[in-house]
């Protein structure tokens, strides 16, 4: 098991390297640069600035220096746009925020989604099922960029209950709307997947055997059906966890949380090369780790994979 984990982690390193090189090259191919502006800089000024940031070097040298600084000093370079801040600063400030509301949204989506899905499957074709299914579809039909404005209109303008945005160190009032906005659509999908998976499992042969053995409905559902039901859900949850962190750009935009999603998109638009690369590496590493965890969870849930 341990060798498996180590092997997977070692394979991850070239994957991330490739990701960085590809992003780096794509970034430089995109027209314009970090210092292209409405007010074009005089050539000598542009030359000074490019020299200061090392952008006058050949691409391979820039890439080499970039890797060198990361490995030798764990320094991801300066931001080209937010001139007072380094990429390390930006990630250190934004990532904990994204991680906080992202994890909460992930928990909310998984717990409520799985709960709804199971309830719907157990009470198949009853009002509970219909209710859960319609709730799931409604939630799925409302992506976070629609949920955001609706929530702000409702809770801030009409009811005056919650602040319309900000983070304030992660105080609960500031967390509610971002978490709801981010979790609902995933909640819907999770509920749907759980429901259909559970229905399939309940109709399978080993459950029929369990029933024939005279086991109680409760024991069948919780002891025998739950684990196999969750398998497809888990394979969906892995990517969702990464999505709630990366896809949080709308939450950052609408709720001014100061999270990292905003930096990801704005750095691409402003050609803030260093920030874009830094965040890409972070999300790449995160994806690799989450995929590994998903596979490990799989093995734990499904004996067929383990043995």
């Amino acid at each position: 098991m341990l060798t498996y984990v180590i092997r997977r982690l070692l394979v991850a390193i070239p994957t991330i390297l490739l990701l960085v090189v590809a992003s780096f090259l794509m970034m430089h191919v995109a027209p314009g640069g970090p210092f292209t502006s409405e007010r074009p800089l005089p050539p000598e000024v542009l030359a000074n600035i490019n020299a200061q940031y090392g952008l006058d070097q050949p691409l391979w040298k820039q890439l080499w220096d970039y890797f060198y600084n990361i490995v030798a000093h764990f320094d991801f370079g300066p931001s080209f746009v937010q001139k007072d801040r380094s990429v390390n600063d930006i990630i250190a400030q934004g990532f904990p925020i994204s991680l906080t509301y992202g994890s909460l949204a992930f928990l909310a989506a998984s717990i409520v989604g799985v709960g709804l899905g199971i309830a719907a499957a157990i009470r198949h074709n009853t009002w509970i099922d219909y209710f859960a299914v319609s709730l799931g579809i409604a939630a799925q039909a409302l992506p976070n960029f629609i949920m955001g404005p609706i929530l702000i209109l409702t809770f801030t303008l009409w009811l005056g209950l919650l602040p319309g945005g900000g983070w304030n160190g992660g105080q609960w009032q500031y967390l509610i709307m971002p978490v709801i906005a981010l979790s609902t659509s995933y909640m819907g999908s999770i509920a749907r997947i759980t429901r259909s998976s559970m229905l399939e499992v309940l109709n399978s042969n080993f459950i029929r055997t369990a029933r024939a053995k005279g086991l109680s409905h409760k024991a069948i559902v919780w002891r025998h059906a739950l684990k196999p039901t969750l398998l497809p859900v888990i394979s969906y949850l892995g990517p969702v966890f990464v999505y709630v962190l990366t896809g949080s750009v709308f939450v950052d935009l609408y709720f001014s949380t100061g999270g990292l999603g905003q930096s990801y998109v704005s750095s691409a638009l402003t050609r803030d090369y260093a920030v874009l690369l830094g965040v890409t590496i972070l999300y790449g590493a995160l994806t690799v780790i989450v995929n590994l965890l998903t596979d490990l969870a799989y093995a734990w849930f499904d004996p067929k994979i383990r043995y």
Partner: protein
Amino acid sequence: MTRISRLTMTALLSSTMLAAGITAATAATHPETGEELAADQTFTYRLLDDISSLDPQIVEDVDGSAVSRDLFEGLMNQDEQGNLEPGVATSYDVSDDKLTYTFHLRDTAVWSNGDPVTAGDFVFAWRRAVDPATASPYQWFMELMSINNAKAIVAGEKSPEELGVKAIDDHTFEVTLSQPLPYFVQMTTHSTTFPAPQKVVEEFGDAWTKPENIVSNGAYVLTEYRPGERIVRERNEKYWDNEHTILDKTVALVITDENVALTRYLAGELDRTDVPAGQFPRLKKEHPEEAISFPRLCNYYYTFNLSDSGPEAFKDPKVRQALSLAVDRDIIANNVKAGGEPPAYSFTPEAVAGFTPPQSEMASMTQAERDEKAKELLAEAGYGPENPLSFDVIYNTSEAHEKIAVVMTQMWKQKLGVQANLANMEWKVFLDTRGQQDFDLARGAWCGDYNEASTFLDLLQSDSGYNDGKYANAEYDKLLAEAKTAEDTTPLYTAAEEIIATDMPVIPIYHYAGVYMMDSDVGNWPTENVEQNWYSRNLYKLAE
């Protein structure tokens, strides 16, 4: 709790309440206008995006400059109308050849750490601004100010120590120019020219603007900075004119989406926000006291590509005239933008100080007359149903730009039978494409760097870096060069505008307006300052 400590508590509490009561009472009315002031002197406004830097020599965005003006103070300030008023300098002398300016600094000006603000801090800051090692995107501003040797230092030919600035003594700062510049002193209100605390910058290097390190000399100090969320600045008790500062605190909230910002304004979380395009009439009706619009020093236009890569048709001034005439600016200004923007028939906005752009022939015509003339001109140029004119129009992706582009091309199609194909581009791609003359007709806009007509007219000089249409007219260049040192610039600028009206290298569409939702309890917002250089220390909050 013992009896004694309870008594002490009561005494403490009542004395605190008493103190609070006194503060409230003394802050109750405005010393000049006598208006009743609010107890909470906090102004909260929306920022579209995070600022580029807190470093005055490096900051390049409008919002960042507003923060810089609160935290730092330069030689001169602007008042509510945009006129000069003393800042750190109490007065200045100009030599007879107009090449040497001597500024006399007040001895009461101190940094927030208590150190005096000296001429040396200005020398340090100005050298820093031109030093290639600082990599300031505003190095060129020092060149524009014509400071001696600035150009050579930026080009790496001389060292920053050779810049034409000198500290005669702690309170006398001398600047030498390479050529006389009539609006030199106006330029000292710009953040690039603000002083920098040498000791702090040298001690912390790039980290000197971190909230825990920063030392500033303005009316406010930075107390909280959460990137992407908020910037808070609070009264600087050590500021030399602190007793006249009324506003205690200014909070800038980063809210990228303008509609969310409007919602939060309506929910009472903001005192000021921008009005999204097209919503002004509705908001004005619902909140007549709060929806405000006033002229700004910016223009919005379309530029023809007149370079070799541009379409052949645009080389004919008649075609350019025809296209410009057929654009009904009233519809764009009143129905599309709808925020009180004045339609533009000149390149320089009317709001500019010291110059009134001449009334062009086009401006005095009715739209029906313009359309008629446009048809005639286009026919004369040889375009019509048999030989239809067709070209591409580019603009950067934005709802407001798109609406205008669509309306404009429809006007050309319906009135002139012209086929204009629209293409929108992401911002940086757009700038790159336009900068490489890879277009036919492109959107452009400019906000004045200083309140003088040359900040606009210079753009169309043949060697201007912003002249993406590559318009070149030797006579025009000559007029602008003469204006740099002329006593009376009006006839020169008027002639320049007349050349633009004839040659029509650009289609001016409208001039900007500041369109805000502003809480009616905000006092003294400088609506007459067309550059919108506002200072928190001039604002106050009225009692509701």
